[in-house]
């Protein structure tokens, strides 16, 4: 719930920004106040279906990338924990944007090598596979890196030394240390959900794949920095912010689920601070 409530200021800011661009004048106290006063009604109308309905058609396409990346991130974390620290660091530090660009190059290369030219379409399984991999690797590497650091920290903690002293085998001690570190890593993955949503949006925007991500990309890009270089599509702020809210809710729902799982995995006694 805390995560979902934190999304409201994000949505409010973008709504105020889009509204300001629509007014076509410099920001003033009156315009911001007008936006703030009208926001609760706008939010209610958006949530009750009005402005979000037109974006629902793009949700399944975007949802495929997001869900696949979010689900496959778990086994990827396990694999990356066994990878050399340098690989984890490199994948975690690289801007996700560049991995996506690299993935596009790989797709073109595969098409050239295997001599089948197919247009780059969102529904093709191998396109989905390569792009999903590019989406999930940076967050998975960051979580794996964090988990490994935490596991090493817990492996040297007092309670671990006690476990060794009472005769537990080393693999079991290590497994216990990894288990203690797990909830923190899972919690970190919840925070990565929004980064993943941004990556999906940029992916659809770059490749012009139809979907919710492309709609949000178009909305934000329509207010670009250069007059005449509007990359996106202009639409009224009241409608446009509905698309963003839907994308945020999709990522927020995943984050809430993962947070709940992290709390469930926490080995500490519940209700004790």
């Amino acid at each position, binding site marked *: 719930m805390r995560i979902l409530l934190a999304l409201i200021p994000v949505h409010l800011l973008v709504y105020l*920004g889009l509204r300001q*661009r629509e007014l076509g004048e410099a920001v003033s106290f009156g315009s911001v106040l007008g936006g703030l006063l009208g926001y609760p009604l706008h939010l209610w109308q958006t949530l009750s279906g009005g402005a979000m309905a037109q974006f629902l058609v793009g949700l399944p396409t975007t949802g495929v990338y997001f869900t696949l990346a979010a689900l496959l991130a778990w086994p990827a974390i396990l694999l990356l924990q066994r990878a050399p620290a340098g690989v984890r660091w490199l994948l975690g530090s690289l*801007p996700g944007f560049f991995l996506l660009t690299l993935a596009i190059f790989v797709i073109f290369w595969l098409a050239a090598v295997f001599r089948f030219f197919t247009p780059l379409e969102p529904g093709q399984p191998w396109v989905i596979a390569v792009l999903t991999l590019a989406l999930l690797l940076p967050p998975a590497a960051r979580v794996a890196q964090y988990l490994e650091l935490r596991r090493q920290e817990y492996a040297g903690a007092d309670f671990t030394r006690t476990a060794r002293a009472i005769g537990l085998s080393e693999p079991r001690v290590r497994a216990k240390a990894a288990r203690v570190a797990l909830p923190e890593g899972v919690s970190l993955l919840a925070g990565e959900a*929004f980064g993943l949503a941004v990556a999906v949006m940029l992916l659809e925007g770059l490749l012009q794949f139809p979907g919710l991500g492309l709609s949000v990309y178009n909305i934000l890009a329509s207010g670009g920095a*250069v007059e005449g270089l*509007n990359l996106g599509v202009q639409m009224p702020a009241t409608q446009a912010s509905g698309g963003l809210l839907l994308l*945020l809710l999709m990522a927020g729902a995943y984050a809430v689920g993962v947070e709940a799982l992290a709390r469930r995995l926490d080995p500490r006694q519940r209700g004790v601070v």
Partner: protein
Amino acid sequence: MRWVLLPLLLIALLAPPQGCPRQLLIQAGGQTVVPPAPPGTPGAWLGTDVDGRDTACLVARGVRQSLQVALNVLLLALPVALLLGLLLGWRGLTVGLYAEIFVLAGLILLLGNGAYTWVLALGLAVYLARLVAVRVRTVLLEPFIEGARAMGGSSWHILTRHVLPHLFPVLPSAMAVGIGVAFLWMAELAVLGYFATTGYWVEFGSGFENVPMRRFMPLNPDLAQMIATARFEWLAAAEQLFLPALAFVLLTLGFADLGAKLTRK
């Protein structure tokens, strides 16, 4: 990877301060080439853009411009981050920044493109304040703080004499991490069409068209802006995308590695 920062800093320092000269026609080995010149052209070994500007010069200027924007953002953000982090850490509060690109884009839409640097600085201040607050909370648990309290030290005394000096050693690592984060945000915002600097329009055509072709050319672009603009023509001029992207990745990784190294120290 931090060693790559040194040559990149040198490239930035040696970049022409007045910008890259435009050439309508390029004289190469006794031949006249109409821009864009491909890589390998004598006099412009890395090629030129469509406006006849040398790619090597553009990349060097891009590195310089990116560093300049990131440093400006960092200098604006750091004092605010310190104060906010001290306050949050002292009060035991935390601040979360979800979906920060949407927040930054929303603020730029609201305040106008002129506020680009300020908006990035605000975002970075919140990001760094979280790191500072964690450090403050760690320091506040130390026995010497308990001792200072027992001796009757006031909150001001504890903050200025005991907490603040313990923040200074972590500042270099926070700054390196902050620059890396600023680069990432610049790249993501550039894809959406939000830049630190503007540009100009170039018209093409033989003069017989009803509507001449127009192309946007960034003026003194940073690396993120170069990548964002070149991606539309990456099949025709791959080097215009590849070289800035390479420099950008190296800068980002270099600062991330420097931050990690300083944190370990």
